[in-house]
């Protein structure tokens, strides 16, 4: 059977499954809609969290990014999993005990201020929309390549599915669908990884095969280092970024990740504080299976790509090359007219003499990093059903995260904005209605961005992480661990953190003050402390912490009942199910 037939079958089966689950677990109250009734088993919740957490970025893009970045790709691996540790140890149990529905709820109550709540709602919406747009692009890529429908149609199909189960089922529907999606996505990620690992180093465990020996007797990574330097790239295991920058980016991603609202809200769905702790452990375990496999897949894919493509006659290239060329995500221009593909680092000036000698006139191959994971099974010539499976897995990853984010968007609007500020007298039923309306509107906006992806998606995503690190993270941490922290301190810290981060981004990422995008490359020498805009979230976060502490000590202590609240969230006893006040 062809890849396309297999894809239709597998995607059809999984979609039917998701919809079936959604119908079976429909939400009847706001509590079921927002937090699944607060009665989800920790292991089940762990799986759902893992699916929520691992987006299209983790499934589709990450291994591809790492395979082009080598060692530097560790910023994503360490940043995203390490941030999870912060979340599990410093936030989850306390926010569970606090027992409200959302992050803006916590900020608003802890800092006894509707201004703080509104700022938090705004941040939550910004982060969520940025993310959703990325997921929808992932859906579009998968559909356009594997089902060979136009991206627009692909995105519309994806939107319809998400709309159906997120709007109908709320958190309850999402939780159980996400469990199914986790199973699909992890299976889809592991099967090709295991196949390729056996193929290349004869070891069925990719995590070990990654350090294994290839058929010619040399270590895979040594061989890859050799291939890289041969083509003017830096060694795969060394990377190119400065140590300080790697440090800063990792730290910013960690703090930013710990502040992601759609993942935090997951911990409100378990019955007790001890379940929140346990659920966090299982979630990271389930996440780690993919995150330790991804770097192995990256190294395999890189080796395979260079071996298959470089210096091969264009006419001799395998079928997958042409298939991806059609999507426009891969392209070849024969600059020196020898009919062969030359793939090398033409930005490396020290290498240009060697390239001239070989008669190479510039790099002839451009590859969108997002296609590496999807193309990998084809490059390795795996059976058609495996290729189709990866497509279904990519969709599962994108849809599960998109659904979680839509829920944050809808609760932010119906609960934090309408119920808590504009229309406090709403009944439960009205609130549920508005939550569904908001989710529906969210789906449409997300779909729009999926069809017309803004050219600056990557930059905005980096900005979202930086903003979360510079704003949410210190406010929540201090809210729990510093009883003396008051409204003045937290608000001052958040405002200054966000402003500084925004300024740095505008200056060094968009070049606003120096004449636009073209100026950006020339500004790298004037980066503060040599830290890139992606890593600046760390600096902004530290400044936020500092300002908050100083300002809070110069202004009056928070009221008595707030201090009692802090005392209360520090001990587990008395945590009821998440309540609506």
């Amino acid at each position, binding site marked *: 059977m062809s890849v396309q037939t297999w894809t239709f079958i597998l995607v059809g089966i999984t979609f039917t499954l998701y919809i079936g689950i959604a119908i079976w677990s429909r939400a009847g109250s706001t509590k079921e809609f927002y937090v699944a009734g607060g009665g989800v088993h920790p292991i089940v919740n762990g799986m759902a969290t893992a699916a929520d957490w691992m987006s299209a970025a983790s499934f589709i893009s990450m291994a591809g990014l*790492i395979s082009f970045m080598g*060692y530097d*790709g*560790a910023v994503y*691996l*360490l940043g995203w*999993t*390490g941030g*999870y*540790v912060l979340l*599990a*140890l*410093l936030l989850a*149990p306390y926010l569970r005990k606090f027992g409200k529905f959302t992050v803006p709820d916590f900020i608003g109550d802890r800092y006894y201020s509707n201004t703080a709540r509104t700022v938090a709602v705004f941040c939550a919406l910004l982060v969520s929309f940025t993310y959703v747009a990325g997921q929808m692009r992932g859906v579009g890529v998968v559909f356009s390549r594997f089902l060979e429908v136009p991206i627009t149609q692909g995105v519309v199909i994806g939107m319809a599915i998400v709309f159906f189960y997120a709007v109908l089922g709320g958190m309850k529907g999402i939780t159980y669908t996400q469990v199914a999606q986790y199973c699909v996505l992890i299976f889809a990620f592991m099967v090709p990884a295991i196949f390729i690992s056996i193929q290349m180093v004869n070891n069925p465990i990719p*995590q*070990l095969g*990654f*350090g*294994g*020996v290839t058929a010619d007797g040399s*270590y*895979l*990574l*040594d061989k890859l280092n050799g291939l890289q330097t041969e083509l003017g790239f830096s060694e795969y*295991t*060394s990377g190119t970024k400065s*140590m300080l920058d*790697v*440090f800063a980016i*990792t*730290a910013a991603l960690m703090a930013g990740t710990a502040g992601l609202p759609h993942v935090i809200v997951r911990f409100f769905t378990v019955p*007790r*504080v*001890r379940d929140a*702790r*346990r659920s*966090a*452990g299982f979630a*990271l*375990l389930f996440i*780690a299976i993919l*995150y*330790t496999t991804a*770097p192995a897949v990256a190294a395999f894919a890189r080796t395979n790509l260079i071996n298959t493509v470089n210096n091969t006659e264009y006419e001799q290239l395998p079928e997958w090359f042409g298939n991806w060329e059609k999507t426009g995500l891969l392209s070849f221009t024969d600059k020196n007219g020898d009919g062969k593909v030359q793939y090398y680092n033409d930005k490396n000036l020290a290498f240009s003499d060697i390239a001239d000698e070989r008669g190479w006139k510039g790099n002839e191959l451009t590859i969108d990093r997002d296609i590496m994971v999807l193309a990998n099974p084809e490059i390795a010539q795996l059976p058609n059903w495996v290729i189709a499976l990866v497509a279904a897995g990519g969709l599962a990853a994108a849809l599960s995260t998109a659904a979680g984010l839509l829920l944050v968007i809808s609760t932010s609007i119906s609960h934090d904005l309408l119920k808590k500020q504009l229309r406090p007298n709403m009944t439960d039923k009205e609130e549920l209605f508005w939550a569904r309306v908001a989710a529906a509107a969210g789906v449409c906006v997300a779909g729009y961005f999926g069809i017309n992806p803004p050219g600056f998606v990557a930059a905005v995503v980096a900005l979202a992480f930086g903003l979360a690190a510079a704003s949410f993270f210190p406010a929540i941490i201090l809210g729990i661990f510093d009883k003396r922290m008051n409204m003045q301190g937290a608000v001052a810290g958040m405002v200054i953190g966000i402003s500084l981060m925004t300024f740095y981004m505008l200056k060094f990422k968009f070049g606003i003050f120096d004449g636009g995008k073209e100026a950006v490359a020339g500004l790298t020498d004037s980066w503060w402390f040599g830290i890139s805009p992606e890593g600046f979230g760390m600096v902004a976060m530290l400044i936020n912490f500092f300002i908050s502490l100083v300002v809070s000590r110069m202004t009056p202590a928070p009221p008595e009942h707030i201090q009692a609240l802090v*005392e209360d969230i*520090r*001990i*587990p*006893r*008395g*945590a009821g199910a998440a309540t609506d006040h």
Partner: protein
Amino acid sequence: MNQKNHALYWKRNLRYLAILLSIWFVVSFGFGIILAEPLNAFQIGGFPLGFWFAQQGAIYVFVILIFVYMYLMNKLDLEFDVDEK
């Protein structure tokens, strides 16, 4: 539970956090980033050691840390009688 016990419980919690987060820092930022280059001089199997910590080792340790924290805290809750009934 009285105030004094409460303070003691919190202090123990903070001590656990300090220890666990130190390990967290050492394996990721320490071995994986700051010391990555010197550690790359050592090999385990086909991996340069610093590279292994950055792309594999630290993640394994992270998983263990969360389960250790869960175990310690559940025990502490019982000891101070603040667990959920």
